[in-house]
């Protein structure tokens, strides 16, 4: 049915004067279950789809989007996109992909239908009970969900491109609340897998409970400049805030801190960054980008040296290079921009405990807060609320909170003096993967 509707859309678009046209269609359905005190608290079912239409007229690209697929929507899309194209003043080249290239086929985990909704509800009820039974200081779960979703992406254009991809995700998480005296702390546990049966609630429960209990009694420390080790998930979410500097668009507009830095050293020898679109556990993993260009694994930084920027078709045309398959749309409502697919800082062979052992005094950060606020995305300066543990003589001794860590991202890359072997890419790390990372010196503010 959609095929016919799209043919009609392209026909009417052509009559309007569009030389070439493209649709980007996303559809998904999902189930989300949350429990509270032995009952199903929230049960959410959703099914949705949305479409982005774009077309080229007079050398300009016009966009429009819709969530309905009737005749009226066709007229709206064509008219709005036409008007939007006329408004464009930028002289940047516009391009659509013709579908050439070598596409890999990503193994798609299919959701297993042998488990009922009741099984999944029972899983969450058991998870809640197990967390509460672990320790008398655990009061309740402040948040928890079982989530499964199926997702389809489809890009088709009038230059011959026609690509579809299906994906599915399953994960469950819980946030435990621990209280001792007047001190309240939270901890999160998450498990993700190919199928319902591969999700493990002992892992979720252990992580959530250990994190919450471990932070009880946390206090600020006096302000100090000292070595800082970021736990894998904390550093991955930190990295996710700076990937825009690798975008060729930001570089071309001179808004990136990496302008003119190709083939120069931007970090220490421990900095090896790869964009890996095919990694199995990546929620973002895909065989083709949001312009339909085939994706591939590529090093961005090797032994501290910057190897490439990330390109879509338009920025590649401007720099006379090939697209790196990094065209990205935030959703069908957005325009094509640039983003890494899975931005991975590569691990080493050293264990986290050996990395910690190298420090006489320092701070081990397990979580950063307010990433959207405490980072200056232009200058790279950051000042972030965080918590974790004090490192004394190589061991984690006391929990620490109510402190901030401050520095500059570009200086930090040069000050990385070790990475561990505990690489993690999870739904909590926002499209970035990282091992735990040691930085020789950062400013900690506290008392």
């Amino acid at each position, binding site marked *: 049915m959609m095929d016919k509707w799209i043919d009609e859309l392209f026909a009417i678009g052509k009559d309007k004067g569009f030389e070439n046209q493209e649709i980007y269609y996303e559809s998904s359905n999902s189930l989300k279950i949350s429990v509270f005190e032995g009952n199903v*608290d929230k049960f959410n079912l959703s099914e949705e789809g949305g479409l982005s239409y774009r077309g080229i007229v007079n050398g300009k690209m016009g966009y429009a989007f819709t969530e309905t697929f009737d005749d009226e929507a066709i007229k709206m899309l064509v008219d709005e996109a036409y008007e939007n194209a006329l408004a464009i003043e930028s002289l940047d080249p516009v391009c659509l992909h013709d579908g050439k290239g070598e596409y890999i086929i990503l193994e798609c985990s299919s959701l297993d239908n042998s488990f009922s909704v009741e099984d999944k509800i029972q899983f969450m009820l058991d998870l809640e009970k197990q967390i509460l039974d672990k320790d008398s200081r655990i009061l309740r779960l402040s948040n928890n969900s079982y989530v499964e979703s199926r997702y389809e992406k489809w890009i088709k254009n009038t230059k011959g491109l026609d690509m579809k991809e299906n994906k599915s995700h399953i994960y469950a998480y819980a946030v435990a609340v621990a209280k001792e005296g007047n001190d309240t702390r939270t901890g999160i546990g998450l498990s993700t897998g190919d199928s319902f049966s591969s999700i493990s609630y002992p892992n979720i429960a252990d992580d959530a409970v250990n994190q919450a209990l471990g932070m009880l009694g946390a206090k600020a420390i006096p302000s100090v400049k000292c070595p800082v080790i970021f736990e894998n998930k904390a550093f991955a979410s930190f990295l996710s805030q700076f990937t825009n500097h690798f975008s060729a668009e930001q570089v071309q507009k001179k808004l990136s801190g990496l302008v003119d830095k190709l083939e120069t050293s931007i970090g220490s020898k421990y900095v090896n960054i790869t964009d890996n679109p095919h990694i199995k556990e990546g929620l973002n993993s895909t065989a083709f980008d949001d312009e339909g260009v085939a994706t591939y694994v590529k090093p961005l930084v090797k032994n501290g040296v910057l190897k490439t920027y990330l390109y879509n078709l338009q920025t590649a045309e401007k720099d006379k290079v090939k697209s790196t398959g990094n065209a990205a749309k935030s959703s069908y409502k957005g325009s094509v921009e640039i983003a890494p697919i899975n931005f991975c800082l590569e691990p080493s062979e050293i264990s986290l405990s050996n990395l910690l052992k190298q420090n006489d005094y320092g701070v081990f950060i397990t979580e950063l807060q307010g990433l959207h606020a405490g980072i200056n995305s232009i200058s790279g300066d950051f000042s972030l609320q965080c918590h974790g543990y004090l490192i004394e003589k190589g061991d984690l001794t006391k929990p620490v909170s109510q402190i901030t860590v401050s520095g500059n991202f570009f200086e930090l890359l040069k000050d990385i003096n070790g990475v561990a072997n505990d690489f993690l890419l999870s739904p909590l790390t926002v499209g970035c993967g990282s091992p735990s990372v040691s930085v020789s010196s950062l400013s900690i503010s506290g008392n």
Partner: protein
Amino acid sequence: MIDQRLAHDILSAALSFGGDFAEIFVENRTDTTIGMIEGKVERSLSGKTGGIGIRIFNGFNSVYTYSNKLDRETLLNLAQNASKSLKGVSQNLRIDFVMENPGIVHPVKVHPKNVEKIRKIELMKKAHEAASSYSNLIHQVKINYIDSCQNVLIANSNGKFVQDQRVRTRFAVNSIASKDNKMEYGMISKGSGKGFELYDEISVEDIAREASRVAVTMLGAKPAPSGKFPVVLDNKFGGVIFHEACGHGLEATSVAKGNSVYAGKLGEKIASDIVSAVDDGTILNEWGSLSFDDEGNKPTRNVLIENGILKNYMVDELNARRMKMPATGSCRRESYKLPPTSRMTNTYILNGKSSFEDMISSIDYGVYAKYLGGGSVNTATGEFNFAASEAYLVKDGKIQDPIKGATLIGTGLEVLQKIEMVSNNFDSGEGMCGSVSGVIPAGLGQPALKVSEITVGGKE
């Protein structure tokens, strides 16, 4: 959108296998976004979205489902399937809808859809010109124009049947200054629940010049100090301190289940005597104002704190059941794709009696934060943070050099007690607030206030 008969049938289907209350939320929405860089329009996006959300209560628990297909068969199936997941008994429902028509509560004089794109672009060009000519240190100027119109219909099994239209306009200028390979930015925006007439009342050039002034100022800023200091937070966006340190913790979303440090503290003193705060969704054409909230209730002027005493929470209908308190007309959601919950509308600290000058002159060594950026909070622990986007050192009672990289952190209960002076220069600002029911426009505001001590996350 949909008629009363279909609404009735969907609600009946939603309670056909269990549940004690059902609600539908129908939405259609248009958005226009125009982006300009280097004085040229680079991005122009528009489109229509919409669908229906169906919510069923069963005691304290809820089921939510949504779809963007609006045909009768799809909707009745959807409602019935949602009801089945409750495994209860059918309610024999007879609903007599009462159509509530408030008239126009927040009138829009010039609907943005009736304004040609070229006029919107003209505004952007004026702003570009003003921002880029402010100083030769200005290296790039990004301008965003946004307008949206959301039409909603809310009907429930208690007979409520209401419609509302929410028009929002927003204009943002981001100036980037550069010198000696260093870059800093200044971002200023104005948002409103008015239509295009907003631009007869404000000057986009003023916004643009202010953004450039901040960018150039920050280029000369030194790293902020580290440690605990007295801090003066200026009016308007300074209100983010209350939004993070207290506002989120007063939402029933976290209070009802005890996940807030403010749970169980009604009637207790939680802030210093000079602090009074309200959440007010009734203010004419304000950024977070509504004619009806997303449960179809009328917004209120909800006094949260009076002279330091906790007076009320922000409560939605579902949490009202658990809390045994009335709903406060501030239940909100981003779209039909998310179930609504208690959120802030326009949240303000009210004027006090001190003067701005007295606050500054009372500080030997501390920080003055003129503009604040965003922040976040963990309501269970009360730990919050927010970032200063333009700040200065204060020494011997005088404002000195600009400082950068200052994130301020603390815990809500502690910082509210440490508000030592509240001035009389109230003004409001407009933010986008993200939480469980999505990203929504939220108004914030305060007069300048002084906190006796707060941790400043600097480098020196």
